[in-house]
């Protein structure tokens, strides 16, 4: 098993560390899956986490100048690692002016992802900082736990309003309630609602638009046939939603959510070469 990668371009480096920062805000530990052309950060559905799961996918070619990996076997050319994304985020934080960042899988005392940062210095030779991030290598028999979640058979799919706006609304609501109801219909209307003994607050968004999922697999093709006014709703943990919104460092080019009534809310954030999916289950 081998892995070695290098980033030289500053813009790529900053972009990469923004992605990592976002992941670090969403998950305490996560799984890093490496394949020849892609990196995945996966948080799998665990009851301890409140059933939240995450799937983040990036193309290595858009970030790395060098990228070599060798999996356990030729026919399973992948690597699955468990790590604390906060460590990776911290290592990259002080690398903002780096000449180069190398990431390498090593096994000295324990399996580590070694991030070596080459920094400019006042002297002739550059300054080298290395961060050894402990990782756990996930054996192949467990790989099946980290399959890409399928898009649920949703009742309503809708584009999200500007995330900053949504964030400030949710942050205020968070002070009043522990859970939030997201409801939407196929006319591009979405409501964020909290209800307590003392107060009910609803924020209405309209003209958001509904993404055309139609012809994908026939499953959702009946959208036209459905009642456009019918509202799908799910009550979710407001903290999880707030976490997702607060973690976004750049406004994604596309943000949408799929609601399965009373079951789950599936968020998809697309940002050029990065896609982030986040699943928040509905509260009982």
């Amino acid at each position, binding site marked *: 098993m081998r892995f070695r990668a290098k980033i030289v371009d500053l813009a790529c480096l900053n972009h990469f560390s923004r992605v990592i920062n976002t992941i670090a805000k969403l998950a305490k530990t996560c799984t890093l899956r490496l394949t020849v052309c892609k990196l995945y950060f996966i948080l799998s559905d665990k009851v301890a986490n409140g059933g939240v799961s995450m799937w983040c996918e990036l193309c290595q070619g858009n970030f790395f100048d060098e990228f070599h990996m060798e999996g356990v076997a030729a026919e399973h050319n992948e690597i699955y690692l468990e790590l604390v994304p906060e460590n990776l985020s911290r290592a990259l934080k002080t690398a903002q002016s780096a000449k180069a960042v190398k990431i390498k899988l090593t096994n000295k*005392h324990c399996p580590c992802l070694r991030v070596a940062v080459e920094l400019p210095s006042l002297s*002739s030779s550059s300054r080298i*900082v*290395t*961060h*050894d991030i402990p990782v756990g290598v996930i054996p192949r028999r467990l790989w099946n736990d980290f399959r890409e979640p399928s898009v649920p058979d949703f009742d309503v799919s809708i584009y999200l309003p500007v995330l900053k706006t949504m964030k400030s609304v949710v942050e205020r609501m968070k002070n009043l309630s522990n859970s939030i109801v997201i409801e939407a219909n196929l006319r591009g209307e979405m409501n964020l609602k909290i209800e307590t003994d003392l107060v009910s607050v609803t924020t209405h968004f309209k003209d958001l638009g509904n993404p055309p999922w139609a012809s994908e697999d026939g499953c959702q093709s009946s959208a036209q046939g459905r009642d456009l006014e019918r509202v799908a709703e799910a009550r979710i943990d407001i903290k999880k939603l707030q976490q997702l919104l607060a973690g976004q460092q750049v406004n994604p080019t596309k943000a949408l959510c799929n609601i399965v009534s009373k079951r789950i809310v599936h968020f998809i954030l697309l940002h050029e070469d990065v896609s982030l999916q986040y699943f928040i289950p509905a509260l009982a």
Partner: protein
Amino acid sequence: MKCIITGGNVKVLGRAVHSLSRIGDELYLEPTESGLSLRAVNSSRSAFASFLFAPLFFQLYETGGAQPDRELLRCKVLMKSFLGVFRSLPSLEKTVGRCLILLKPRASRLVVQLHCKYGVTKTHNLTFQECERLQAIFDTQCCASSLCAPARVLAEAVVHFPQTLAEVTLEAGPGGKISLRNYVEDEAEPSKTMVTELWLAEDEFQAVAVVPGSRITFCLKEFRGLLTFAEASNLPLTIHYDTPGRPVIFTLDDAVLEVHLVLATLSDPESDLQPPAANGVSHLPGPSDDFGDDLESYMIAMETSAYEGGSGVPPSPTFPLRTPGPAKSDPEEEEEEEEGAVPGTPPHKKFRSLFFGSVLTPGGPSLAPTQEVLAEDSDGEY
């Protein structure tokens, strides 16, 4: 004592207070002929800092020692209240033109007056306590290794470590490179902790005279405080150190300012692992054998009475008395044995130089063993 500070020097003083506030809860002020000394020590006595401002630093400097034979008044104030005066450094720079510090022994007040823009005068009347002299004894000349670098280089080096990190290990590696690494306790699981290491090339330093392979571990918090001061003042910082367990001394030197920060270092685990018995029968008078002696000659709180001639009252009478010289029993080991006897005590890091506590008077070792306790030492460490 009366002194007046003007212009940019007010901010320098303010920064010094900020740096000292990282060390202890009390600020010791000592006016001397060579300048005003501000000092602090932490509660476990593993860190000591002193800032000596030369008379030239001030527009006016009077020690107030009218009678030449009488000792000058020393005092300590609560760090919190003194820091409060200099809390906001930007506003200090913007608004304060002149600062007056006045020690009024009769009124038992330390007056700090800030003369600001638009004729505003802020007067802070602080209570103080007369106190003993706070002095750590150390000698940079005895240190086997020393390093000197612009503060900026070191400040840029420590940013790579998390704010919560307690200790850092400095090592003179091969090829003249100096490395800094976060210290990981033995108990910590290696699979849980991220290890950050940084190498600085020899030519980033202004001077390097280190024993190859030498390595020390010290607290980062106090060092960061000093670095902030040094970086703002644009002064090079010199690090003097010796073997693990002996204090590391950080110094800044300027025409009108002399700064020392003395920090305990973590003793080498290898030498700690030696069974105490083996140490006891060892007859080698090697330098590493008698820690007690080294300690006393290195780092002693000479808390001499503020009043001279007080019939030879020992400085801190509550301490068990030890005569300096070839001590039979190693104080270090006693301490460890005692700790070992307490079941359930969590294993802790052994800062060898925690024990400032051995007593020596500057005059000589002729002390009566039984003395009335005048004031309980505030420190329960001993």
